[in-house]
């Protein structure tokens, strides 16, 4: 069974007429990494928000099935507990909520929702220590409120740390490379690659091919004006890098 199956998905912003997604079809199987590339305004972020359940969007047509269930019927937190994870393009600061409290609350809420035992504090600390070392996240950062005072790179690493701790089945990475210098990009990519497994799937949304040098995809899709206009292997990303999006944009129009 596929992890994610999107069929003829049409989406518009609530209260507006223009469709942002105009018939997306995408099947993601366990173990696969799919890259979705496209110019600004092609609908990349909308796709990631719709998958995670943000409520500013209206689905006018189509379906999204996650592990056989209707994803669109699920609440935001239900999706997360079922294993859908969105690494945000712009992770926001949450003053007053310590990162550790946040991580523990999230992990235990998910475990509880799945009918699993909550993790004890020592067991939880051990998990976080291991995963944060891999991502070169200092313990001091974890004592701060979520993302408060973090640099752009630190915020992205913190997102990947959350992903590593929560161990989702479907990881959606929304422009995780934006705002990263090359060193930070490598650390983030290593963190993501460490999570690749035969049971887990990833959808990597990016504007640039650069990230895909480090997170090598199995499939590449070009999104333009709300539609997937071309799909191919990892070589498609290189082709795009050379010729630009223009060819595809015209094709879509």
């Amino acid at each position, binding site marked *: 069974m596929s992890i994610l199956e999107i069929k003829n998905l049409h989406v518009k912003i609530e209260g507006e007429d223009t469709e942002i997604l105009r018939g997306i079809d995408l099947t993601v199987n366990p173990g696969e990494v799919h890259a979705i590339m496209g110019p600004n305004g092609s609908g990349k972020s909308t796709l990631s928000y719709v998958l*995670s359940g943000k409520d500013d969007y209206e689905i006018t047509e189509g379906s999204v099935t996650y592990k056989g269930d209707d994803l669109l019927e699920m609440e935001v*937190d239900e999706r*997360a507990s079922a294993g859908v994870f969105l690494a945000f393009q712009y992770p*926001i600061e949450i003053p*007053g909520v310590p990162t550790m*409290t946040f991580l523990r609350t999230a992990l235990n*809420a998910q475990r509880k*929702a799945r009918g699993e035992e909550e993790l004890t504090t020592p067991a939880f600390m051990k998990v976080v220590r291991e995963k944060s070392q891999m991502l070169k996240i200092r313990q001091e950062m974890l004592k701060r409120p979520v993302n408060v005072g973090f640099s752009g790179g630190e915020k992205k690493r913190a997102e990947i740390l959350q992903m590593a701790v929560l161990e989702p089945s479907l990881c959606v990475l929304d422009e995780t490379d934006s705002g990263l210098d090359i060193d930070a990009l490598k650390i983030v990519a290593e963190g993501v690659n460490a999570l690749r497994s035969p049971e887990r799937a990833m959808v990597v949304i990016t504007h640039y091919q650069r990230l895909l040098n480090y997170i090598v995809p199995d499939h590449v899709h070009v999104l333009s004006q709300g539609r997937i206009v071309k799909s191919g292997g990892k070589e498609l990303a290189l082709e795009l890098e050379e010729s630009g999006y223009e060819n595809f944009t015209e094709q879509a129009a």
Partner: protein
Amino acid sequence: MTASPNRTPAEEAFVSGFAAAEAALPSAEWLKRKQALAAFNELGLPHRRIEAWKYTDLRNLVDGAYPAQTDATLVDVEQVQELAARSIFAGIDRATAVFVDGRFRSELSALPEESAIEVLSLSDNLADAPKWLSENLGSVVPQADDAVAALNLAYMSDGAAIYVSGKCEQPLELVFVHSSGEPRTVSQRVLIVVDDEASCEIYETHVSPANGRYVSNVVTEVVLGDKATFDHVKTQNDGSEAVHLANLHAKLGAEAKFNSFSATSGARVSRQQAFVEYAGEHTDANISGVYLLADKQHGDSTLVIDHAVPNCTSREMFKLVLNDHARGVFQGKVTVRPHAQKTDGKQMAQALLLAPDAEFDSKPELEIFADDVVCGHGATAGELDEDLLFYLRARGIPKDQAMALLIAAFVGEAVEEVSSEAVRDALNEMATSWLTTHKTGALC
């Protein structure tokens, strides 16, 4: 101000019930109950045409007769013990003094055993009061213009008199329990005298069953000597039918440190006044508080800070979380007298509105007559940030729990002002669980 020609039923009961009550209440020659009643009779209950009571009209809000409680029998010990056990301080090593329906209960209390602190029940010690008690009781509270304080003196049945002569090791919790029963007014008094260089930590818990219909009137006087340190944490969790009227008057010696925090989640109507008077230089006063109100609860915090001498600081930080039709009021008056140079005063009141019909009224008043001071105030009101909620939920945290986290984060800045880490943890826990225990109407 003149007496209102038409008394409300509440005022009528207060005035007409005095003679009988006076005979039943503990007495002492120096205790001027009659004068206090006369002052109340002159003033009546405060109402909205008095500027300081504009948002909290007691003539209107105290909605019937609440005769003074004079009966000293203890009805239901088990209920009292169950209520007292709800205290957020229950997990902290502390001494306790328990008052039930306006009477001290020694059998339910565990008074401090260390020599640095002496705790007396007022009712047992009025007639033969030690000098520190008779000289200080009523010394900080002005009777003439405060009807609620006058009423308190006229009817007070008991309370605690605390004398601190050294550095206390163990905190003391004053527990005020009210049982259910007929509508009544319970007036109690607390006097805390802290000697030069002495220190203490006092907790206050107010609790009752949900259906307790009473007016709780508590006047607290704090007299701090030079270099004295006073930490005060109060939780007001009176029943949802109750009216809670509290007056805190503090007189601070030189280089003293006064830190008072209150968490209010109970009572139908509450008005908490704090008056701070500086009697010496280089003194710090910190008053902070958290309000967690739902339904039609009305919570008012009114502060009057009088910088009468130079080189002192004052800090006020209040956070209000208002759900349903709840109304929060913050009034902060800071006076800096002409010679009170180098005064450093800051004030902040912030409200989080969880429902469209919740209301926050804020009235900062700064009267500055000195020219070399740093003073500031701020007030904000806002809703929960949808993006923050989404972020938390996108990590699997259910909506209620996510809101609770954000509420605790919002009030956390005020909770930070509390000195004790164990108490801060207990307060954060209380704020986090508030939403689930007070979930009523539609949330945003």
